[in-house]
Structure formats: structure tokens, C-alpha cells
């Protein structure tokens, strides 16, 4: 029998110490957001940024990405899709297709038109940023999937991402550490993480 089990005072003290603090979902969400932001910082562990491999598989993946990118660029250039982006005038945009290998693109061959990923342009004005990516529920909030490209004037960042039709929450990850909302888009609470996100509605309402 342990020391504590023999002593009722100590047992009662341990019971008291075992009382858990009250649950606070808001704090849990803040921790998750902080950890998610920190994991993609430049000082991150090297295991997260693996050097490109030289096997055949990545070549196929890259080829798939290029094909998907070409499809999207084609759609856009033909005006096949409206631009529902809360974004910027077209003359400023320097669209680049990003995240072509995202899960959204894998649904592009579905028979229903509602299940086809649509190209969605995202833009952000920031002269000070060094890196910008769009993160949202359509790419698992992964900042490595959809980096934005800086325009020649150095102020506007933009990209085009295939996104499934529907309402989506998103934001921008600036310099791998700062999560900012799109100043041109409406905001809503993120059901998963609690914080606010910008809202984009893709496809038919």
C-alpha cells in the first residue's frame, strides 16, 4: 500500500488536486490556432520541409498538377466561370494556379456540375509581406498548398485555387506566421476553430 493510500489526509488532498479546471473551448481553439501558425514558421523543423525526391512518383504528381493547372487557366481564359472572388480588378491580377493537387481537384471529374471544383481567385494587397498564401477549409488550412504570387509592382498578391462550390471560410497566412482576413470579404465565425474567417461563396448560390 502506498504512502498516500495509508493516509486519509493525503488521499483527500490528492483528490482535491485532481479536480480539473473548468472547460473553456475558446482557450482550446486559441491553442490550436497558435500551434498551427507556429508549425509553418520558417524556423520549423526540417522534417516538415522535405527536399524534393527524385523518384518517378513526384514527376507524375507534377504532371497531374500541370494538367489541372492548364485546365483551369483554360476555363478562365474562355470566361467559362464568373469571378465570384471578393477580389480585385482584373487588371491588377497576376493569377497563378495553386494547390492543383488539392483534394478539391480530385473531384473535378464528378458527373454533377455542382461537384466540379471552380477556379477561385484570391488577392491581397501588401507591400511589406515576403510570403503570402491562402488558407481555408478547401485546403485544410495548409499554407503550403496555395502560395500567392506578387505582382510586378510589388503590392498585389494573387493566386487562383480550385475550390468546390459552396460557402467557404478562408484567410491569408502572411510571412508564415500572421493570419489575416481578406479586407474585401465578409467575415464569419469558423465552426472548427472559433476564430473569424473571411467568407467566399463559390458557384451558384
Amino acid at each position, binding site marked *: 500500500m*502506498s*504512502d*498516500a*493510500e495509508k*493516509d*486519509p*489526509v*493525503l*488521499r*483527500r*488532498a*490528492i*483528490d*482535491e*488536486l*485532481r*479536480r*480539473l*479546471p*473548468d*472547460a473553456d*473551448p475558446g*482557450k*482550446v*481553439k*486559441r*491553442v*490550436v490556432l*497558435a*500551434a*498551427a501558425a*507556429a*508549425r509553418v514558421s520558417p524556423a*520549423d*523543423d526540417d*522534417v*516538415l520541409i522535405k527536399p524534393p525526391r527524385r523518384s518517378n512518383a513526384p514527376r507524375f504528381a507534377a504532371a497531374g498538377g500541370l494538367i489541372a493547372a492548364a485546365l483551369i487557366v483554360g476555363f478562365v481564359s474562355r470566361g467559362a466561370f464568373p469571378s465570384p472572388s471578393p477580389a480585385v480588378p482584373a487588371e491588377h491580377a497576376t493569377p497563378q494556379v495553386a494547390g492543383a493537387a488539392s483534394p478539391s481537384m480530385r473531384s473535378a471529374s464528378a458527373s454533377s456540375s455542382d461537384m466540379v471544383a471552380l477556379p477561385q481567385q484570391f488577392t491581397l494587397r501588401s507591400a511589406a509581406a515576403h510570403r503570402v498564401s491562402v488558407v481555408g477549409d478547401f485546403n*485544410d*488550412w*495548409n499554407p503550403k498548398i496555395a502560395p500567392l504570387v506578387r505582382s510586378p509592382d510589388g503590392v498585389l498578391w494573387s493566386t487562383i485555387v480550385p475550390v468546390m462550390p459552396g460557402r467557404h471560410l478562408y484567410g491569408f497566412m502572411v510571412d508564415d506566421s500572421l493570419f489575416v482576413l481578406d479586407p474585401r470579404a465578409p467575415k464569419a465565425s469558423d465552426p*472548427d*476553430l472559433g476564430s473569424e474567417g473571411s467568407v467566399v461563396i463559390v458557384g451558384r448560390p
Partner: protein
Amino acid sequence: MSRLNLTASRLPLPRPAATAVLDARTISRAKLGDIDAFTEIVDAYYRRCLRFARATLRNPDDAEDMVQEAFIRLYRALPRYEESARFESWLFQILGNCCRSANTAFGRQGARAVDDDAALERIAAPAASVDRIEDDWGDAVRRALSDVPVYNREIFLLHYVEGFSYEEIERMTGVKQSALKMRVKRASDALRKHLAPVAARGGDVA
């Protein structure tokens, strides 16, 4: 003065503290960067981590920051986590490191200004207020624990409150089991010495 009922302990000891059981797949998903899976992990362990940090830190006000720091370190290191190791031990190992660092930093800062009116009132109050404070068994326990040296306190909490075996704590801290048992005994003796008079004043100690 309220009567303390000290007969209703829910022990035996130690035992794993209550935590939602995490599916191994949840940890695997989190290793791959799945934020939903990581949210499940934080949700399952946050309150236990906060309890441990509050009891371990010299400045309990730092507890939430240390818990957040521990989860940040955990998330960064997750890709390297070997699933043969016990996840819970690993988390508390990280948290323990964070708390030790914070205690060291706090010790260097020395005394801090007290801005809390309630705290000032307690300090300035006459001796009778000690009885008032210790009417509350929980306050008495926390005050007694705060008098236990941190290096003994941490091991005591890991063993009796968080439910880790001495073998697990040895792996987590690198301290031999014989030394761990001695630290727990010293912490237990200190708590008993402080709390026995409080319990005697309170009543039943069966």
C-alpha cells in the same frame, strides 16, 4: 467553521487521470498535419495540462501560456513522434520542460509587484483571516502544495495526480526511480505536516 469530510476519497492511487481516450488514428492524422485531429488532442488534454501547470509553476498566472507553449512544441514535433511511445507521457514531458524553464525565468525576475486587490487584502488582514482562508480545504491544499519545493512537487503531481508510474516518470525525466520515490515521499511528508492540523480542525479524518 465548516466541517471537512475526509472519508470520501475516490482512490486507490495512482490511477490514470480521466482523459478522453484518443484513437490512435487521431494521433496519426495529427502527425500528418490534420488540424482537426490536433484539435481533438488539445481538447482531450488541455484541462489536465492546465491543472498540472497551475500546480507546478511558481507563478500560476503563467499556466495558460505554458500550456499553449507545450502544445505548440508538441505540434511541431509531432512528425517525429514514434507511435510506440506513450503519447501522454510525451506530452507531459514537454509540458514539464516548459514549466521548469518558466520557473527558472520567474526565479530570476525576483519579487513581482502585486496589483491584485484581493491578494493585498489577504496579506494585510489580521491572523484571524488565516482561519477563513483555510476553511476552504481546496485553498489549504494549494497553499500547502506551494510550500513544497518545485522539484519534489512536480514528481508528486505526475505520480499521484496525473497517474504516471515511477517507471514512466523515470523515462520522462531521466531521474532514477529511487530518487523519484524519495521526492514523492518528501512532498507527501510536507503536505501531511501542513494539512494534518487543518484536517484536525475540520473534523472527520477516517
